[in-house]
Each structure stands twice: as C-alpha cells, then as structure tokens.
C-alpha cells in the first residue's frame, strides 16, 4: 500500500504553515499524527497533492494551566495525554479514554488535535470534549478564533476548521471541587472504534445536587453527540437511581446510531443507555472522593 505522490512541506512556524495552506488551498492536507490520514492515503481514498507537516512547529505541544483553563497544544500526543499528571489531577477521564484509543504505538504518534480535527464521530476525544465543555482555538492568517466544542463538529469529517486554518489548541475549564469524570466505550476488540461510547463529567454540590454536568456520546450519531436531555435529567437535582435511569433512557432514545458490523441500531441504543448509566456512577464516585 503506497500513497500517491505529493509535495511535502514542513513549515517551521504557524504563519508559514497557514500561508502554505492558503497557497495550496483544497489540495493541501495538514499532517499531524498521521494515523488517520496516512492509512487513507495508502488506500488512495485520500490523494492530497500537498502535505503540510505541522510537527516541526514550536508552541503546539504544551499542557498547561492558567486562569482556570487547562490548555493542550494541538500536537500533544495521546501518550502524553495518557501520562500527564496535570490532566490526571483535574480530569481522570483522560486516563480512561486514552487507554482505549488504538494501541500504544499509535498513541505515541497520534495527537489530540488531530483526533478532533479529523471530525470523525467514531473518535473518542470529541465526546470527552463535549463532556468537559472544552473549546477549540483555530488559527488562520487573520488570527485566532475560539470555537466552543458544541459548534465544532458538522458532519462526517467536517468541522469548523476551514481552508487556511489550523486547529492549534484545546482549552478546558478547570472544574470546581466535587467534580468527577469518566469515559468508557464498548469495542469489538481492543483498539477498535467504539460500538458506542459515553463521556460524563459532573459536579456534585451541597446535598448531593448535581450542579454541572456534561455528557458526550461516541459513534452513535453522524457527529459527536451531546446528550442534552440526559444532562437536563441530572442538572439541579440530587443524583439518584431514578435520575440516572432517566438520563440513560434519554441517551438511548436521543442517539442516532446506524446498524453496521459493530451492531444493530437497537443494540447500540441499548448499550448507550448502559454506558451513560455506568459512567454517571463512575464520575459521581470520583466526584465524591
């Protein structure tokens, strides 16, 4: 399996990369971790004429915290996400999710930015970002704009990142004490895309009342899906078996999975509910510890 010939550029700065993207337009693709793009190129499903390798651009590989925001550079590798103590401190969900993404070698190459910018509802980080209510910084020749995650995904392989733009940073608000998060997906075998996946972050305040909640679903809709009714079922109420069951039921009803090799529509709806229930429990447990 060999890709079609292309011209390779490895810009040393963001502005250089953006000007190359503007120069080559639709025929150019950004190469980050490459573990979605290169297989497509080898199969010749994707045949970009220009490949803009952004791996040499400084300033995109940080994980930092300031002003109540955790900032993750677009080039941070999955393996770095997996082993980051800062992320583990605020978001135990990252250990959950990274372990389930592909395999260790792929995680050494794959980037968080690429996972989001690929715009695939089967990827795992989109649902996590929905749960964490992250936003995404996108940079173009005109400067940077920040897009809330809810306005980022538009369709299969379609995101808010437009021609001449690069996703540069992921920003996640640091949650208050009493917050927990969790992710799990069902997979046919380790490293597979999700049959269904659920990401939950919730904050439990006084009297056990849920004061904040985010729930994202993986691969049960053409775009990553926020389980809005499930969130509403929990928000402002004490966490109980009833509210959790309702949240699970809503997730099951509101997702739009298609039948495929991973399972029937009915099965996917069913397990989406189960996963949402389990992840609420797990997140709550973490919130209370």
């Amino acid at each position, binding site marked *: *399996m*060999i890709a*079609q*010939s292309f011209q390779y550029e490895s810009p040393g700065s963001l502005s250089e990369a953006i000007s190359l993207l503007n120069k080559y337009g639709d025929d150019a693709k950004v190469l980050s971790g490459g573990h979605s793009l290169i297989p497509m190129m080898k*199969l*010749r499903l994707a045949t970009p004429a220009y490949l803009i390798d952004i791996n040499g651009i400084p300033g995109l590989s940080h994980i930092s915290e300031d002003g109540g925001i955790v900032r993750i550079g677009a080039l941070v590798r999955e393996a770095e996400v997996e082993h980051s103590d800062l992320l583990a401190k605020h978001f135990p969900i990252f250990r959950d999710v990274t372990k389930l993404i592909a395999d260790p070698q792929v995680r050494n190459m794959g980037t968080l930015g690429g996972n989001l910018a690929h715009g695939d509802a089967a990827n795992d980080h989109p649902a996590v970002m929905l749960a964490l209510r992250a936003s995404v910084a996108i940079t173009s020749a005109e400067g940077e704009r920040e897009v809330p995650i809810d306005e980022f995904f538009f369709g299969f392989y379609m995101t808010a990142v437009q021609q001449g733009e690069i996703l540069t940073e992921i920003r996640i608000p640091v949650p208050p004490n009493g917050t927990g998060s969790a992710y799990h997906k*069902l997979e*046919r*075998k*380790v*490293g*597979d895309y999700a*049959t269904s996946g659920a990401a939950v972050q919730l904050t439990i305040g006084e009297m056990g009342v849920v004061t904040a909640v985010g729930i994202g679903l993986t691969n049960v809709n053409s775009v990553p899906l926020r389980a809005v009714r499930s969130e509403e079922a929990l928000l402002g109420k004490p966490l109980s078996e009833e509210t959790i069951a309702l949240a699970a039921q809503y997730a099951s009803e509101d997702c739009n999975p298609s039948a495929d*090799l*991973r*399972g*029937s529509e*009915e*099965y996917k709806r*069913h*397990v989406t509910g*189960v*996963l949402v229930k389990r992840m609420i429990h797990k997140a709550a447990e973490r919130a209370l510890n």
Partner: protein
Amino acid sequence: MIQCKTSKAIGGMGHSMKRKEDVRFIQGKGHYVDDIKLPGMLYMDIVRSPYAYAKIKNINIEAAMKVPGVIAVVTGRDLEKYNLHWMPTLMSDTQMVLPTDTVMYQAQEVAAVIATTKYAARDGREAVIVEYEPMKAVIDPYKAMDPSAPVLRTDKAGKKDNHIWHWEVGDKAKTEDVFSKADVVVKEEMYIPRIHVASIETCGCVADYDKVNNHLTMYMTTQAPHAIRTVIALVAGHVGLTEEKIRVVSPDIGGGFGGKVPVYPGYVIAIAVSFLVGKPVKWIEDRSENLQADSFARDYHITAEMAGTKDGKILATRFKVLADHGYTDASANPSKFPTGMFSIATGSYDYDTTYMECDAVYTNKPPGGVAYRCSFRVTEAVHAIERITDRFAFEIGKDPADIRFQNFIHKDQFPWKSPTGWIYDSGDYHAGLHKALAAIDYENLRREQAEKRARGELMGIGISTFTEIVGAGPSKDFDILGIKMFDSAEIRVHPTGKAIARFGTKSQGQGHETTYAQIIAEELGIPMENIQVEEGDTDTAPYGLGTYASRSTPTAGAAAAVAARKLRDKARKIAAYLLEVSEDDLEWEPGKFHVKGAPEKSKTIQEIVFAAYTNHPQGMEAGFEATHYYDPPNLTFPSGAYVCVVDIDNETFEIKVRRFVAIDDCGHIINPMIVQGQVHGGLTQGIAPAMYEELIYDEQGNILNGTLMDYLVPTAVESPHWETGHTVTPSPHHPIGAKGVGESPTVGAPPAIANAIVDALSPFGITHMDIPITPNKVFKALRDKGVIK
C-alpha cells in the same frame, strides 16, 4: 507422564529443548520472501475487480504504460496466448489466472502491472482503467442452489446449475429408522463462518527465470514446495518449463495455517512474466489483498441432528451440509474426500448409526475451502457433534460432562471402527475429561453458576471432548492431485558425527528444526545440537507433500525415526565389527552400543560414524546416510478435553472467557514446550472464530471487513491466559507413538466456547448460537426470547 530416554545433553524426545531456529528470528535475521532482492528484479502489482460479478468490457492500459518505471501490463488475453489463463485447483476444478472476459468475485485479479520499483507498480495499477458491466452476483449458497439462479460457471460446457458435487457416507435407511423410533431427537442449524488464516506474513514470491539455462527458481511462501513444483510443471510444462528445470524454494514462512498451500494466480503471473522478460519478478500481497482474495476456510451450513434415549445414550446422528466454495472448488482435500475428514463427525462417542451428506455450490465469492489451522473439515465436524451433544444433554436435562462420560468410547475398545469407517488408533477420553474437570474444579463452578443464576448473573461452562484425525495419509486412500500423501526424511551423518537432515515438509513456525533433530537424537543418540535440519528447497530435500493438517510429525516425523533406525541397524553392524562381537551381543543405549554384560566395551555413535567413512567392514557400503519415504498405515487420532468458563455482562452482553483448561492427548510428546506452544496458539485461533472472526459479504458481494481494522484478529487482550495439560496415549502404529497436535486446539476450542455461552443463556431457552458469538448477537437472542424489551 513424559519420560525421557535420553539425557538433556542429547536432547531426544520428551525434553523441552529451546528452539534452534529462534536465534535468527530474535535478531531480525529470519529470511522471508519479501527479504529477497535480486539484481534487475522487477515488481508486480495486481489490478483487482471492484465487482463481485461483471463482464470486462475493456482494459485500458495506456495511462498505466506512461507511468515512469512501468514496463508492462499483463491481462488475461496476454496469458491466453500461452494457454496460461486458466489453471487447475488442488481439487481438479479450474481457476482463472487472469480473466479474459468475466470476473467472478470482488478483488479477483484482473491485470498485472510490472515495473522497476514497487512504487511505480502501484502507480501503474492505479492508472489501469477497466470498464465493467456489473451483473447480479449470487452470494447466498442457498440461492445459488435455486433452479432460477444464474449459472455462474458458464465456462464449463453443459453446466446447468451451480452445484459442484454431492457426497454422502453412512447408512441412510438405518439412520432414518433409528431417528423415527428414538425417544429423543434434537436438531440445530449451524453456520460455521467463512474465515481467513491471516498469517502475519502475507503471500508472495520472487519468480526468477534464467533464459540462458531455461531454469526457473521460484522463491515463494508455500507450505508444500514439492507439490508446487509438480503443479508448476503441469501448468507450464507445455511452454518448456519441465520439472527438472524448476526449483522451488520456500524460505522462512511467517505463519501458514493452510493459507499457503494453494497456488494463487499471483504466483503464476509472476512466473509467466519472469519467463517472458527473463528477469526476476517479485510479488508480495497487501494485507487487504490477502484477506479479500486468498483462500478462505469453513463456510459450512450444517444441519445437525442427534437421536438418543431419555437417559442419555446416543443412538444416531445425521448431518446435512451445504458448502459454499466460492466460484471454484479450490480446497486442499485429498481427491477421495471432497469434504475432507468431515466424516469424523460421529465424534468421541460409542454408537453405530449415522448418515452424512454434503452438497457444494458455486457463488460469487473468492475460492477456497482450504484451511484455518485445519484444512480437512475436522473443525466443522467437531463443532457439529460437540454442539449437538450439548443440545441433547440440555434436552434431557443431563449434565454435559455426564453425557460425555456415558457415551465415550472406552479405552479398551481401541482400535475402534467408527460408523463412517475410520479406525481410531488409540485414546483415553475418560482420563482426559476427568483431568480437565479436576483442573478447573467443575463441581464448584456449577455451584457458583447456580448461585449466580439466582442473582440474575450470566455465567456459563462449556465442554468439548473431541477426536481429531490427522496425519494424512495412507497412500491407499490419500492423494493430492494424484500424488500420494507420504512424506520423507533424508539423514546424512558426517564423518565427525554431526548430521544434516532434510525433509519434504516445511515449517511455518512449528519448530521442525528442533523437533526433527530431537527425533533423530532420540534414535541415534547424536546430540540434537549437532543435527542441522533443512526443509523447503526442492533441489536438496527429498520429495514430500508438505506441512499442513498436522501431518508433519505423523508422516515426516515417522520418516525421520525410520531413516534413523536404518542407520542404527548399520551402526550395529559397524559396532559389531569394531568390537569384534556378534550383532546379537550388542545392546543399544542412547548414543552407543555396548557388549551385553560388559558396558565398558562400547562404541559411541560418533566412533561408529567415523568408522563408516574410515574403517567400515569389507563389503559394506561406505558412508552413513539413509532416506525414508514413510507411508503411514493409518491416520492418527489425537484427542482433547476442553473446559471453558465464560462470564457475560448482563447489560452490555460482553463475553469474557474467565478460564479455559485444555487437556490434549497427542501420544508421545517430542518437545513439551513446543507442543504446549502449539496448543496455546491453536486455542487463540479457536477463540478467534468463536467470538471475533468472520469474513462478511453484503448482497452485492462486497467484502465488508477486508482489512485488519475490521477483520478482528484477537490481540493479547482478547486472548485469555490459557491453562494447558496433557495425557499420553501413544499411537500404536506410529514409529515413535506420536500423533499430530497443531490443529487440535483450533478444532476443539470453538465448541467449548460456544457451549459455555449457550450454557450461560440456556435458562432463557436459548439452545444454539452461531459463531462468532458477539455481544450484539447475544443481545438479539435475548431480545428474540423476550428477555430484553
């Protein structure tokens, strides 16, 4: 108990000797086909059909020929000029090398692009534009049997349907009679899915034709180099490539499992191109080509029935099979046995009435019916009998272990003639199952299961007690394309007492370089370290039928022992001469002959061998070499008792194999470490089709999982920690009492797992599930039963 007759220094049978071949593999010095680079070598890539069934209207090679580096594009029309566009399959059916007008399955070879680099060949492949006229594909074998179905093999004159052959065995009338009178009759429809060996190394070759000497050297991934040489000569003899002009070399092979037995079109095209251009041509498949176009295994639709008494005695079985062979019958079965050894399906049980029939059909799918670590349909047979036995136990409310003990053939009944005519050589099925049940603590598991069921948890225990049939085979019954299924060994001991031994088989990871050396060490007392084993080069190795179907130890292993014994007989003569005593006064101990009653008067094998070159008796032929072609008197019948425990998540229906105990009996064990390794590997290739793997086609004949992203080969996470053990019931007819083992676990594991899962779901009235059993299927089964809304 394994008892060793030799010291570890000699390393004969029973010792877990470390493998000799590993030294190169762990240092990256294995030598596989894709590692071969010859001067002037060209690269071939293959254009494949996107359609399952279509007329080829036009092949436009203009753009491809303009790609820098591309030197030729070969089509079926080009091969037709040399009458090389069709070739025989191993089942004497016919198969296209390249099509001239019609493609019969998706991913079929359509044209070959030859270029100076791999990259140019791929660019050329992309630039070949083929115009097709798609036709409605026949994918479902039942629909293929329908009289209204289009006839697919229009190349066969007079062919009026898609039926290939009908086969039957047993006593139909008697079986019907027993079934009609029996207290209990159970029946299940079972599908054994289409699966693929997916050895980590794909298939490939370097065809190197030397125009000056009219000589072809064919380096290729083959498990049966000699048979391939003969096939090449049969296919290409008419253009001057006769058998003495052909050398087939099978270097290190990265896993075979039967997938490297057939002759694939790519090999033949590479030979044809090399023949025409006089340069070496390399062809290496991609993984997707391998999964989509190489021979598949299984694809048996089985109706299994069992009749018995209320108290559990099995009286009769009946099996009806529909076999989907794709567009040509390209299985690798002995000529007389188009369904291989499916007739072993009467199992490990003592009853005398059965009837089995099988019909094979053509569909628009890739050809095959070869192997997945078992080529002769034993897996299908064992699945059918072990599942239907459990079904019978369930019907009468009997424990599946008890029903097996009740019906097992007793060890004193061997040799035992099965209702389909096989003579089982030996076995102790009771001992195996007792050992397995004790190892897993069966009684406690059943107690735990009862408690869990009361709490609504899903736990299942599954048993499989199988009889294998391997070591084909006696030449009166077994041949491939007419060549009898013997195998061979040639031993040459050098003057200094070190040896080289060559075989007609070919290891693909089984460790022949170690185990064959151990057999010879056992017989001659020469340390196995000093015995070099070679296979895979038809110029040097004696003729043999190759390694598949667990036949190497039963055939070539036996040949090694017999050849070594010929040498020991010669050694006795030389020793008698050297010690100046009569041959009858000599006694053998590993590594030397001594005079009876005077152990200090002895000659070591090394001294004897030296004498064979320097001081041999007058009138005796010099040298110390022997060859043997072993024609087994019978097959060997290994057996096993497997017990499996599964836990099923009662919300997501994910299935976890908690424990799996496998007790195997393969007779005398040559190397316990290697036998255990074979069992481990076979078990993972057993869980694979039981829970993960299946090649899936849609109604148009598109393969939906033709990459390793979707064809789910288990990783170390899915594969459980296997618990293994053995019993030893030697084969009475094999020179060293050994039986084959490689495919046993792949045969025995799937029904153990399926039985465990069905056992877990049995409280809901579920009596059967087709493999691979996935969470999605469990969900559906429970929904169909109304358990889940």
